[in-house]
């Protein structure tokens, strides 16, 4: 039981490492889609959210659709508060760190850019940061995953030996 439990812990950490990389890549994909909508459609950020929700799955799809819907209702709330309100709970359910989420939200800081190239640059900056982070994590991920499982296994054996 102890061995299975500790092995489970090891696998959990392994999944967390891999999951964070996958989640970062998903955020990158979202930013790429937003860039495309801004660059070629000249759509507002709310319209972009509506358009990209069609191409997404699961909780993200409904969260982005909700952003578009709430902006359409025009209750007077600003985009940033609506976006955070709808998207942050979904991001919190992913194996992301707070700094990853803030990096993703950074593009909203200057939605007042009157110039589309400036707005695009902001999106690109956030995307590049997330890409770099995902790249760094992916580089040592195999070793980390193996280590997590091995440590779990050895930790379990150690506890068994101590209890023996």
């Amino acid at each position, binding site marked *: 039981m102890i061995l299975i439990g500790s092995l489970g812990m090891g696998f959990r950490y392994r999944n967390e490492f891999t999951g964070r990389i996958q989640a970062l890549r998903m955020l990158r994909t979202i930013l790429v889609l937003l860039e495309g909508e801004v660059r070629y459609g000249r759509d507002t*950020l709310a319209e972009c959210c509506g358009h990209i929700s069609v191409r997404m799955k699961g909780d993200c799809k409904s969260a982005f659709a909700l952003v578009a819907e709430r902006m359409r209702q025009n209750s*007077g*709330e*600003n*985009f940033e508060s609506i976006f955070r309100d709808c998207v942050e709970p979904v991001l919190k359910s992913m194996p992301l760190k707070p700094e990853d989420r803030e990096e993703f939200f950074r593009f909203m800081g200057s*939605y*007042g850019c*009157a*110039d589309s190239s400036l707005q695009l640059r902001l999106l690109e900056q956030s995307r590049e940061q997330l890409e770099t982070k995902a790249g760094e994590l992916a580089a040592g991920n195999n070793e980390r995953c193996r280590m997590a499982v091995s440590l779990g296994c050895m930790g379990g054996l150690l506890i068994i030996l101590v209890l023996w």
Partner: protein
Amino acid sequence: MENSILQLFPAQRRRFWTEIAGRQKDIREIRLRVNRPIMINCTGKEFYVNSEGNPTHNPDEARSIGGGELEELLEHICHYSLYAYEEELRQGFLTVAGGHRIGVAGQAVMSEGGDIRTIRNIRFLNIRVAHEVKGAADRLLPSVYDDGDLLNTLIISPPGCGKTTLLRDLVRQVSNGNPYGRGMTVGVADERSEIAGAYGGEPQNDVGIRTDVLDNCPKEKAMMLLLRSMSPEVIAIDELGKPGELEALRSAAACGCRILATAHGNGVEDLDTRFGRGSYKSLFHRIVLLDKKKGAGCIREVLRGGVGSAQGSGKLYDPDWKFGNGIPVSK
């Protein structure tokens, strides 16, 4: 439509604007200038707004608007995506839901070619409230039809006399059909979104059931595009101003399209100066002159083929007026 003025403002300012927005029917313009009193133009009369959001005629009680508040308002109007309205800002106005137009002024940023690249430090906003007057063209209809055939018509007037309002209703009635003619397919080349007041491509004003609108596209190109793609029976444009546009209209007429157009001016003399004496007169069968002498929106005269004398006038929009009494057309 009812709250479309209130919806222009962010949530934290809506309480202040509720009273003013409630007068949407009568409001013509809301003028916002940084560190200057908020001014409202209501059916030709001007008043200020006090700190409670109520109208006042006392300038000492008038509330001013700060730079931050104006920027916040602009961001809200642009859905927090100013970049998406780059082209509109370059032209100096935005069209918003409800068909209202927001004029902007500040510091122009010029490109190397000498064109306006964008406007920054926007410090002046003019919210022009859209007003549709259904029935505005009732009185004119008998004059622009000849035995069921629509005639090429040019409406000339100085600014603020209701020429766009008249054209919009004319388009609607021509498109839907009216007692003088069947419904016709109308193509509207709406460069400044003034006729249809399109927002997100969707007309906010009723321009009729057989009307196709090409919004935000230069008129010359829009007319050719509409001709090729939508095969309209009638082409409508607002503010005919360049010789190229006149040529495009001529091409459209040569393709068998009927023309409805407006132009700025006090009379045919102004257009003679702009386009050359009589160069446009061969194109139009009816020239409608408007003025403000009897209040905004009055038809001064209707000329046949552009040659004639002053005859027949009447209020453009007259709720008591009945079909059958057209304005006499001058010879």
